């Protein structure tokens, strides 16, 4: 759990870049409807940026029931603990 704040900060930087909003405030409860540019195109961009930055790989079916940023962070944590391949 100690990793969570770090990953959240790192994710915040990525999100600010992808959504072109340097002021964007992100918390674990932030959801797509709270972020103006979070549409299906930027969602794929975000996922690809996250994969590159954290060195993880998401399965297609994993991405569809993430409720909020907190869920994405815990998914990243889980992947980093148990790397695939």
């Amino acid at each position, binding site marked *: 759990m100690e990793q969570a704040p770090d990953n959240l900060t790192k994710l915040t930087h990525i999100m600010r870049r992808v959504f072109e909003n340097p002021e964007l405030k992100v918390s674990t409860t932030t959801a797509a409807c709270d972020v103006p540019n*979070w549409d299906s*195109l930027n969602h794929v961009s975000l996922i690809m940026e996250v994969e590159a930055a954290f060195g993880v790989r998401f399965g*297609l*079916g994993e*991405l569809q*029931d993430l409720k909020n940023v907190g869920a994405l962070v815990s998914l990243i944590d889980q992947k980093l603990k148990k790397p*695939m391949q």
Partner: protein
Amino acid sequence: MLFNSSLYIFAFLPTVVAVYFLLNRERLCTAAKWWLAIASLFFYSWWNPANLPILFGSMAGNWFFANRLWAANETTDIKRRRWLATGIVFNLLYLGAFKYYDFVAGEIGSAFGLQIPLLGLALPLGISFFTLTQIAYLADIGDRLVPRQSFLNFALLVLFFPHLIIGPILHHKGMMPQFDRLRAKVFQLEMLAAGVFLFAIGFAKKALIADPLAPFVAYALDQTPQLGFFEAWQVLLAFTCQLYFDFSGYVDMAIGSALMLNIWMPENFNSPLKSRSLIEFWSRWHMTLTNFLTTYIYTPILRSLGKPRLITALFAVFVTFFISGIWHGPAWTFVLFGVLHGTCLMANHFWRRKRWLMPGWVGWVLTMLFVSFTFIIFRAHSVGVVENALSGLLGLHGATAYAFSGHGLSWASSGINMNILGLMAFAIVIASLPHNSVQLTIIFLTYLKGKQQWNRPRTTLQN
């Protein structure tokens, strides 16, 4: 068996629910699952038992590929990809043989003057849905999201009667853990009440709005050679109401039935007629299909095209909706439906990127007009019906077609049917209520239980 038949409501559903909880109470949990699976087969085969072998064939193939994939997941990546690709091709060919072969063969034949033998296979009930469910299942195993399962669990996911024929499209991850929760195996009066509540709303949507509109729509579109201006606009609105209340009512009955078994299925409609853009519409209409398309078609296409850019995203949107159109059925009208939605969604995305603005009500009017017109295309048996409707909407056939009225159901001399207008006014009031049926059910359940104490599977993160 239809959800709105008395056989289902008064015999099938009560028996299934009662026996399921009795078996669970005797701690025969595996038997309870088998009971659900077998009852679902009975439900499926009620109309036509000849469809059963086709369903079994699809499941046998997918169970084979699922096992190969689980084995391959422990070895090399390349093996896994090969088995996944083969499994998906199997599903597409299987669906294609029943649904598309004759259409494609006929079209090629008439284009080149060839005599290609047709298969003449009847389209088995629910094949489009159970094929998608199983493709998602294989894709999720390929991504290591589904641990090795018993055959019973796989069968229950595919066969579970509330979703078998017409969706919502289910995923292993959202469903199977629910079947294994101990609390869900104990009969809960509140859940039964909530299920009956939602089922009743769904039944009312279908019986009080959709079904009474159906003969009018059928008469206008199928038996009126030249639709007048008034009739065309009435039928445009009437069919949108009919389709929405029919489909969402049916899904409410499905979700309600599952609730009586303590199972939450994902919601499929979230007040789509309130949408103020086409993008919003597809995030509210047939949500589990949109979700499937986004996850397993749009995203892989976009990812395969390198760094996502607007132009590649628009391309991916178009291809996705083109495929969605074809999935709905083998006919040029479905292709046209997909192409129109794909094109307008591209325009909508482009517009949004440019941050151009539009007053909300203008967006709502445009969205509803576009969607209603494409629904007419969706329903039409031929392009001729679409032409007739379009000419009528534009007033090319004059104000009214009452001169053509036949016997039985006929147009009033004014071209305006007051019963239909009254029914549509009622439908519009219902559709514009602040809470939809699923939200009302959640409010009702929260009231019954005193607090929110369950985890409802959410449909999606993005909109």
